[in-house]
């Protein structure tokens, strides 16, 4: 366990650098812009006296920005590149040799990387998600709405952990079995697109609607989001009003068993299979 922590901490330490800072700042700034654009449009159509609706709109807009952006497209691009090179680069550059010739098993090396990446991205997402509400407050939004934004951040944060857990397992599996990073990245992208966007693309082909929200929303039904009912109900109603039919919806609602299978069993099995294959291969 000690060796796993050491490998993980080394990964986190080495990657908390200027690149990460630029990524955080870019996501923070762009999220703020998207948030204010989306809320300014909504304000004009709402009754300002209805605080509940206001709350829903702020939280809803924040959730949409979070799902599409903070733990959405840039997150997956950044994560995929990290994952694709996580093991293959260490093996091809030779740095893995120095670790694996020490009393560190291949299992510890892979698990160290897995937990390192998961914690690294959890940390980055945490910094972004929990910094945004105070900044939004500083930029003029009343403090009354900040608790609900913080709760939305918390939900997104946990959702991010699950996404990271699942995709890190798959990414590390690709990286430890495929030497070409480009192939790993491509496969990961294909998988991400398949997971989130294909059902939507099919539906949009019929109705010319582009609002890739519902595919994400399966997680919202799984999560203990009782504390943000207004946001969820807003998203659900918002989506349903635009959506062609409810027939092409990704597992919404998903059963707890399926959620458990996707979020925990699948990554664990993937990592175990990865450990088995990595233990058999030659590190040349």
């Amino acid at each position: 366990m000690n060796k796993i922590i050491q490998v993980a901490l080394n990964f986190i330490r080495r990657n908390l650098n200027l690149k990460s800072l630029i990524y955080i700042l870019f996501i923070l700034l762009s999220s703020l812009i998207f948030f204010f654009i989306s809320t300014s449009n909504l304000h004009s159509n709402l009754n300002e006296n209805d605080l509940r609706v206001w709350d829903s709109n702020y939280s809803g807009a924040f959730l949409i920005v979070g799902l599409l952006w903070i733990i959405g497209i840039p997150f997956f691009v950044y994560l995929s590149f990290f994952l694709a090179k996580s093991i293959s680069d260490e093996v091809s550059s030779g740095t893995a040799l120095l670790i694996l010739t020490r009393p560190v098993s291949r299992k510890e090396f892979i698990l160290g990387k897995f937990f390192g990446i998961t914690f690294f991205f959890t940390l980055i997402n945490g910094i972004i998600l929990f910094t945004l509400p105070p900044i939004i407050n500083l930029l003029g939004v009343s403090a009354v709405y900040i608790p609900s934004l913080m709760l939305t951040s918390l939900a997104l944060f946990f959702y991010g952990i699950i996404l990271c857990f699942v995709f890190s397992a798959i990414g590390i599996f690709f990286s430890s079995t495929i030497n070409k990073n480009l192939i790993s990245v491509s496969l990961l992208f294909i998988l991400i697109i398949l997971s989130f966007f294909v059902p939507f693309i099919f539906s949009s082909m019929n109705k010319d609607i582009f609002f890739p929200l519902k595919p994400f929303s399966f997680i919202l039904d799984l999560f203990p989001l009782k504390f943000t009912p207004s946001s969820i109900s807003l998203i659900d109603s918002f989506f349903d009003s635009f959506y062609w039919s409810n027939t092409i919806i990704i597992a919404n609602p998903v059963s707890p068993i399926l959620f458990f299978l996707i979020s925990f069993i699948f990554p664990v099995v993937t990592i175990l299979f990865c450990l088995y294959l990595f233990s058999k291969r030659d590190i040349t």
Partner: protein
Amino acid sequence: MTDNILLIENLVKDFKKRKGTKRVLDNLSFFVRSGSIVGFVGPNGAGKTTTIKSVLDLIRPTSGQIHIFGKDNFQKEVKSKIGYMPEKDVFYEEMYPLEYLVYLGTLSGMDKEEAKEISLEWMKTMGIDTALDTKIKNFSSGMKKKIFFIQAVLHDPSLIILDEPTANLDPLAQEQLLFFMKSLAQRGSTILVSSHNIEELEKIVDYVVVINRGKLILDSPLEKLREESNKGIEVNVNNSALAAQILLNYRTQIIDKDTLIVDALPNEKNNILKLLIEYGLEIRSISTRKQSLWNIILEILKENE
């Protein structure tokens, strides 16, 4: 000096290729004695790196056994007693030297403070302690090599495996590294060093293991090899023809009027000298003719082609 610290038995490694398999190690067997420095030599593609990586459990052999300290090579207990310096310098370039060494030291089972203290000591000894605040990526190749050497010996391993340790080093730094290798062996470490620089190996090794095409060609103490490669005694006198007559009991070859070669072992040099002096010959020089290790190995390799 008699214990076998590393024992390789009938090691076979086949690599799968698109068209069948390629045998890189072919029933390779040899052992390394405790406290010795063993030169591991062979041409490019001989299988040296594959052997080393098999010993280090990085490559899984097709068949055969590797025992280190009498145990299987993949055991953690065994790995903690091995130091390895690969041929290619590999670093986390963004790290500082001390950070890098402490990380690898702790992975070897050292306490963080201990790793820091010993790293600093080694850096001081190697003369690179002034570069503590410089990232490794900004190091010269010589400095990188020294850091790389330190990471291999930091945890005081019993078996040190060095792959081309002095490549890209200036002569002074080469000498320094050879000195440290010799010192480590004197302190009880066993060193297996793979190098193309035979002249350099000749200065420090006790044993030479030569492989070619995955097979063992030679496993011999250096001294024995030198004795066997004796090319006679060269005598420079004022009359080589007369000297040849005096040395009738020996097979001689007259090179010119002043020089002759006597087919004799080095320990007979004094007898020859005494005999020639008795007959009143003026001896200008007398020396044993030895092939360099490089030539010896080259000949062995040619014989086995």
